[in-house]
Structures are given as C-alpha cells and as structure tokens.
C-alpha cells in the first residue's frame, strides 16, 4: 500500500499536461505493482467508459486491484495531493512572482515530450497484444493475432475519422471479439 501511495504521489507531481501523460508514467510504474499488460489495457478501456479524470480513475483501479477499497482511496488521495498544495500556494504568491511564465515554459517542453511517451506506450501495448507475451519490457513472438490487428485498425479509423464516442467503439470491439470466438 505504501508503495502504491508513493508511486501515485510521484505520478501526481510529475503528471504535467493531463491524463495521457500520467498514463505513460503509470505504465512504467505498473510493473512494480505486479500489473500485467492486459490489466493496463483494460484500465485504459475502463477510462473510456467511466466519467472523470484519467488520473483519478487510474489511481482507483490500481489501488483496488492491488489492495482493495482502502488502497484505492489512498491512491486517489495521493494523486490529488499536488492540486491541494499548488492551489493555495499559487494564490498566496500570485501577485509576487511570475510563476505563470515559468510553468508555461515547462509545459511547452513537456507537452511534445508526452506525445513521444504515449506513442511509446501505444506501440509497446500493441506489440504485446498482436505478438503475444505479457512482459512490459520484452516482446515475445508467439504468433500474430489477426483479429486484434483488425480491431485496432478499425477502431483507430472510426475514432480518427468519425470521432465516435469511446463507449460505441468499445461496444463494436466487444461484438467483434464475441463473434470471432464462435467463428
């Protein structure tokens, strides 16, 4: 539980630039909790179904899987700590310092970096899903899962081209998965 709290404190303080930047940090920390690649993929799918900030959803999910409800609560509070510290601090010194410009310049570097970070997670996740294996760091070539390639391609196309709601996209994927079982 302490390890999870510390991990989510770290994720909170380094989590500049929104949920997806944090998700790549969670992917890296996940191994340490004993989280598997499929469990990470399921977390991202649940994020599409459940309302709320990605970081809060993730903290709740990881906490609950590896320690139950109390750990889920602790992880959620841990990832909330930065906001609770920064807001009063900033408002207190608002007039005195130009923190605004400093943070703007930091974020101007981190935003493009997070593109690379999240793309690396996407490629690594896709690799495991298509070729098999369950290790985060090393792929294993077990076979090629054509159904997954088809689903990935179709969902990506529908998402980028028509901006369908994630709930519909997951439903479509689920139906394809269900049907493919009986083929």
């Amino acid at each position, binding site marked *: 539980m302490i390890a999870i709290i510390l991990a989510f404190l770290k994720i909170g303080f380094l989590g500049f630039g929104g949920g997806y930047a944090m998700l790549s940090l969670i992917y890296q920390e996940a191994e340490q909790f004993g989280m598997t690649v499929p469990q990470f993929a399921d977390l991202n799918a649940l994020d599409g179904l459940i309302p709320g900030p990605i970081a809060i959803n993730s903290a709740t999910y990881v906490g609950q899987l590896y320690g139950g409800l109390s750990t889920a609560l602790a992880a959620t509070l841990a990832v909330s700590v930065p906001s609770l510290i920064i807001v009063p601090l900033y408002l207190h010194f608002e007039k005195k310092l130009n923190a605004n410009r400093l943070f703007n310049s*930091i974020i*101007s570097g981190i935003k493009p970096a997070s593109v690379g970070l999240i793309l690396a997670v996407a490629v690594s996740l896709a690799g495991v899903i298509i070729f098999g294996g369950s290790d985060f760091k090393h792929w294993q070539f077990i076979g090629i899962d054509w159904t997954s390639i088809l689903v990935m391609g179709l969902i990506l196309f529908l998402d980028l081209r028509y901006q369908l709601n994630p709930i519909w996209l997951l439903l479509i994927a689920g139906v394809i998965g269900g049907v*493919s079982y009986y083929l």
Partner: protein
Amino acid sequence: MTQHKNWLLFKVYLFAGTFTFSGGMAMLPVIERELCVKHQLIERQTLYEYTTLSQTFPGVIALTNACFIGKKINGTSGMLAAGFGAILPAFVLMSAATGLYQSLPQQGVILSILAAIRAASAAFLFSAAYSLARYNLRDVTTILLAVGCFLLTLFNLVSAPLLIIAAGVVGILTTLFKTGAKS
C-alpha cells in the same frame, strides 16, 4: 451563507465530474452557467483564467481547476468542497467498475471479448498520441523532443520521470532563448 456556497460548489463539481468522460474540461459551460450566470459567485473571465492556468500545473487538471475556483469563491472550505465533488464520482464509479471487472471470468467468450477490447484500448492510445501531436508539434524542437522521448522510452534507455524533467528543462531553455533573441 458560506455553507450554502460550499454545498453549491460541491454539487456543481459533482455534476460536472459525473458527466465528463476521459478527462478534459468538457463541462466548463455548465460550471460557467451555474457559478457565473445563475449564482454570480465568480466573474466569467476569472473562471477561464484559472482554467487555463490549471492546465500548466502538475496534477489532475480538473481537480486543480475545482480547487482554484472553490478557493476563490469560498476559501479553503470551498476548495475542499469543490475538490471533493470533482473526484467523488470518478472514485465511486471506477471502484464499482473495477469490482465488476475483477469478477469477470477470464476465459471462453469473455476472454475473446476482452482481447478485442484491449486491442481497441491500444487504438485509443494511438489516437490520443495523434491528437496531442496535432496540437503540440509545431517546430523542429518539439518534433525532436517527441521523437527522442518515443525512442528512449520504447527501448527502455531512460525512465519516463527523468524524460519529463528533462523536457521541462528544454521548455525553459527554449523560452529563455526565444525571449533573449527578441530583445
């Protein structure tokens, strides 16, 4: 009166949190209508100013925003009321969803459905990387940052937290360089 304000802040952010999917500030118009128009607790300009500001700080953006507005309207108790409202729906719903997910048997047709959903989940990450790239990769520096972070993470050469810190430093340096070049 101040307790009434806390209750209102809690309700507004609870509602916004319940109907905002995949993070982001999609519920800002609702918050604006309730707090700026109906109850006139805060200026519209102030609301937008702090919403933009929230995005530049580390931590959960929606929560930081709730804390800023809560504290502006009703001090520390307002901050806690709004913040609690912002994270409560995500925590409760995600915790219930994770419980349901844990009870799913991972075999047969369900495993097949989950496999397709995991493939869709990878597609979501590609799509997120694409939209982040569209808005944030504008010049050589930002493209180099993204490509560098992608390769270094994919091949596990540098850890994500370290890359985020380095990217922040690059952001500061490029801003300094640009303002230096102008003057």
